[in-house]
């Protein structure tokens, strides 16, 4: 057996096992919030931190394999730690460390499932995500994948007494399993007739181009369902808000990334030789999801639903980056392939921290106010300064503003798109700049969404009198938020170091690396010949110095007199909280501009109403035109079948008789 002190893979497995043990320990005292919260969740966070450290240190090491003694009869589990797995493990460990610390202070008595049970599900969820990333054969992968789906299903339905939440959980489980079928079939194709289901066998298998394409498309369908690509996204805006906030954070921040991991693993490692048109498939679905997601995010009125739609956008951007990676790689443009792969990975890591931070922020708000509806929040920056300022970091990061982390991945992706004019195929050449335009549009819309999100929740006047009693988050919750916010800042300011680590993945998967050439440690210059560079630390310092100088100059030359007074608002005397923009109001330009994409029903007041009511509901076209139609046709078929089933024994005897006659006729 391997020794955990010398082998990073063994250390990772030991830590995943430790998560399992921590989870099981929750069953010792299932009703005690204190035991789960004060002891077990912090322990889980420590495991996560250790996992992140081990994984980061092993990114640049050569791959390591082990065959476990456990598993199905005659089918031992294979595990493998390579740079790709290490990056996703590091992401899982580091993000979950923050989320677990937050959870330690978050879960309260009387919120659905028992705390001990919750602790078990939560840690099983974490461990299964780790196993998905480490699995090196199809069986181990599917077992881990299903454990992940089931444990997260139970976490989503924590408050199972609410019918909507049960429905959201069911939809999630349904689509997760549709996806799992796709993945399973894809593995079936990839074994290539050898009937060996280890990943090594799949790497060695020589597939026909058609079969390879079939395997890719099946895997893309399967992982796309988990990632929430449009049109398989319908579960996501329901399931993420239904779960408790730390679970939403894990699902959005980490679980969606396992699907990204799966696509990368299948495309670049198991199939190994992607065809260029696969890239266009990924790019098309990715860009459409990004755009669709961000438009819907902008019109949401529920804060967690808004974030869920924003996750669809970010996943879309990641898939677009993967798409151009495939195109570049298949056409032999190695430097650009490495650049776009690193952009995809960087965005995965970034999104894990930003989105977890925002979801946890909404969790703190939810606990303090009991409100998820943006229309009943507002002004919380005064009552909850810690949560507000830390959430602001996440909001600015996800809006892609320099010098935070969201901007770095956006910058890398745009660089990759921008220098695609050297692609030897003219029509791709034309297509990619349009892609760049869409990415730019989505990034700008993300800024809109985040101003709405932050502005409506934390700024302005409180829209309800009860908000005056809101309490800031507790110490553990603050630590969790601060950890994630710090990660957003550090990932934004030291891109060279992060890319240095991610380069190992590119070396392993694509056979090329970005390299940094002679550039300095603070200056990001991915393709030196292009002369484009970005130095966030210098930019931040310049900005800080300029701001400081401005403050000092104003202080030195002018007086500092300040008076507080009522708001001016163009001289209107009576201003109340109702006069501010609501979430609906803030989304109105988007509803107006993108009308064809949205399915709206409006209820407008007339001048004679005693109690005027204004209501607008925006629903998803895909759900209405796709899923409901499929549902209706399935029902129609079922009704046809049901006609056969009359429940009268004479009819059934009649069927038997007719069948017998027909068979006899065929035989004779």
């Amino acid at each position: 057996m391997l020794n955990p002190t010398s082998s990073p893979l063994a250390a990772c497995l030991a830590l995943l096992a430790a998560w399992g043990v921590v989870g099981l320990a929750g069953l010792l005292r299932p009703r005690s919030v204190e035991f789960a919260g004060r002891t077990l969740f912090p322990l889980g966070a420590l495991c996560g931190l250790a996992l992140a450290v081990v994984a980061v240190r092993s990114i640049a090491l050569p791959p390591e394999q082990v065959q476990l003694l456990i598993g199905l009869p005659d089918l031992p589990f294979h595990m493998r730690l390579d740079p790709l797995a290490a990056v996703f493990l590091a992401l899982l460990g580091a993000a979950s460390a923050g989320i677990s610390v937050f959870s330690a202070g978050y879960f309260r008595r009387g919120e659905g499932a028992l705390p001990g049970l919750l602790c078990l599900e939560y840690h099983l969820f974490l461990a299964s995500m780790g196993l998905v990333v480490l699995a090196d054969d199809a069986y181990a992968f599917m077992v881990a994948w299903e454990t992940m789906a089931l444990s997260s299903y139970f976490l989503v339905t924590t408050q199972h007494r609410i019918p909507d939440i049960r429905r959201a959980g069911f939809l999630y489980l349904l689509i997760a399993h549709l996806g799992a079928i796709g993945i399973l079939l894809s593995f079936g194709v990839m074994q290539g007739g050898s009937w060996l289901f280890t990943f090594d066998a799949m790497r060695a298998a020589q597939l026909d181009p058609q079969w390879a394409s079939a395997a890719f498309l099946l895997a893309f369908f399967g992982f796309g369902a988990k990632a929430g690509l449009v049109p398989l996204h319908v579960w996501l805006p329901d399931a993420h808000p239904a779960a408790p906030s730390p679970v939403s954070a894990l699902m959005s921040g980490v679980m969606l990334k396992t699907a990204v991991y799966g696509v990368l693993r299948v495309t670049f490692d198991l199939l190994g030789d992607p065809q260029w048109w696969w890239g266009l498939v990924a790019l098309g679905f990715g860009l459409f999801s990004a755009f669709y997601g961000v438009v819907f995010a902008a019109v949401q009125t529920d804060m967690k639903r808004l974030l869920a739609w924003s996750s669809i956008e970010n996943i879309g951007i990641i898939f677009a980056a993967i798409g151009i990676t495939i195109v570049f790689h298949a056409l032999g443009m190695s430097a650009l392939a490495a650049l776009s792969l690193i952009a995809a990975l960087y965005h995965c890591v970034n999104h894990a921290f930003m989105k977890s931070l925002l979801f946890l922020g909404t969790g703190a708000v939810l606990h303090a106010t009991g409100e998820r509806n943006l229309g009943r929040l507002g002004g919380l920056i005064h009552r909850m300064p810690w949560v507000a300022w830390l959430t602001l970091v996440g909001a600015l990061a996800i809006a892609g503003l320099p010098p935070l982390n969201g901007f770095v991945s956006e910058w890398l992706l745009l660089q990759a798109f921008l220098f695609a004019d050297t692609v030897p195929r003219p029509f791709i050449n034309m297509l990619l700049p349009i892609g760049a335009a869409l990415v730019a549009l989505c990034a700008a819309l993300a800024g809109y969404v985040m101003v709405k999100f932050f502005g409506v929740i934390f700024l302005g006047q409180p829209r309800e009198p009860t908000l005056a009693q809101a309490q800031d988050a507790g110490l553990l919750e603050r630590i969790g938020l601060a950890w994630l916010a710090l990660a957003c800042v550090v990932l934004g300011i030291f891109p060279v170091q992060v890319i240095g680590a991610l380069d190992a993945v590119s070396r392993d998967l694509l056979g090329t690396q970005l390299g940094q050439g002679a550039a300095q440690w603070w200056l990001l210059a991915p393709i030196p010949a292009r002369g484009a560079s970005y130095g966030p630390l210098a930019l931040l310092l310049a900005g800080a110095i300029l701001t400081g100088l401005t403050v000092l100059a104003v202080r030195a030359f002018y007086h500092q007199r300040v008076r507080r007074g009522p708001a001016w608002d163009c001289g209107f005397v009576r201003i109340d909280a109702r006069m501010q923009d609501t979430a609906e109001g803030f989304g109105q330009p988007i509803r107006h501009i993108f009308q064809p994409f949205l399915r709206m029903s409006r209820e407008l007041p007339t001048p004679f109403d005693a109690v005027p009511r204004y209501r607008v509901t925006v629903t998803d076209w895909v759900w209405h035109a796709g899923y409901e139609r499929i549902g209706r046709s399935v029902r129609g078929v079922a009704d046809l079948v049901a006609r056969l089933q009359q429940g009268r024994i004479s009819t059934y005897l009649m069927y038997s008789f007719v069948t017998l006659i027909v068979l006899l006729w065929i035989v004779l």
Partner: protein
Amino acid sequence: MNGLAALTQLLEIIFAIVAAPAFVGWVNKCRAWLQNRSAPSLLQPYRGIHKLFHKEAVIADGASGLFRAAPYVVFATMVAAAAIIPSMGTRLPLTTAADSIALVGLLATARVFLALAAMDVGTAFGTLGARREMMLGFLAEPALLMIIFVAAMISQSTSLPIIAERLTGETMALYPSLAFTAVAFTLVLLAENARIPIDNPATHLELTMIHEAMLLEYSARHLALMEWGAALKLFNYACIGITLFVPFGVATEAQGPLGLVLAVPVLGAKLLVAGAALAVLETVSAKLRVFRAPEFLATAFLFAVLGLLVHLLLGA
């Protein structure tokens, strides 16, 4: 040479800070002339800023720290943006830290802070202005990026000094793609700087304003910084346009100190022309309804994309 680079950098920052209000004053003067009014002095914006700095700041009761920090952040961001646009010389130390994409990012940062500050007090007009500003922003930002992409594809780099040098070196070469993007850029400039036909910088009529609505709660030194920041923004946009479309006369690496000495009057002359042209554009057009603004900016976006396609098709 390194000393010269630092000097160029410093000179450019100081020139931007000092000249930005004068540029606004010049545009106002031209507008007054065109409209047959007696023109205000070029120094009028300075007087306004000076007056505001001496007033006592009144801050609304419900304002948070964000409200007070935003003017400084917006002003500093605009100065940082001015520092990386090679309007005078192409040897700017800060441009290694921020390329054209980062420049667009900086402008977006300023916009987000402005919008958040406008929502902070929680008044009807503030949130209305913030919403409209973000609406214009999400349309104008990708258009601006596309415009920059065309120049970046021509010069094979997103670094602004490289773009400027490459385009200066071929003053005589005519790029049809740049002609399309120049149209797009003009539209973006008008929208982003709250000019007619999108917004009216001179109005305080509640329902028509965007930029002014966001500044309603500001007073005294905070308002002065915001006004100065807005002037810097207009100045920056003019300089971006100069860099992308008429970069000749900018001091390149080869020219040494003499180039820098020459570059200042050349830049001044270009700004005078740009300001006069802006005044003409504003005088001959009427203000659009707010909901025509998306069409206006979509046109800009399409022109920029067209420019990109023209570049890819013709290679020029």
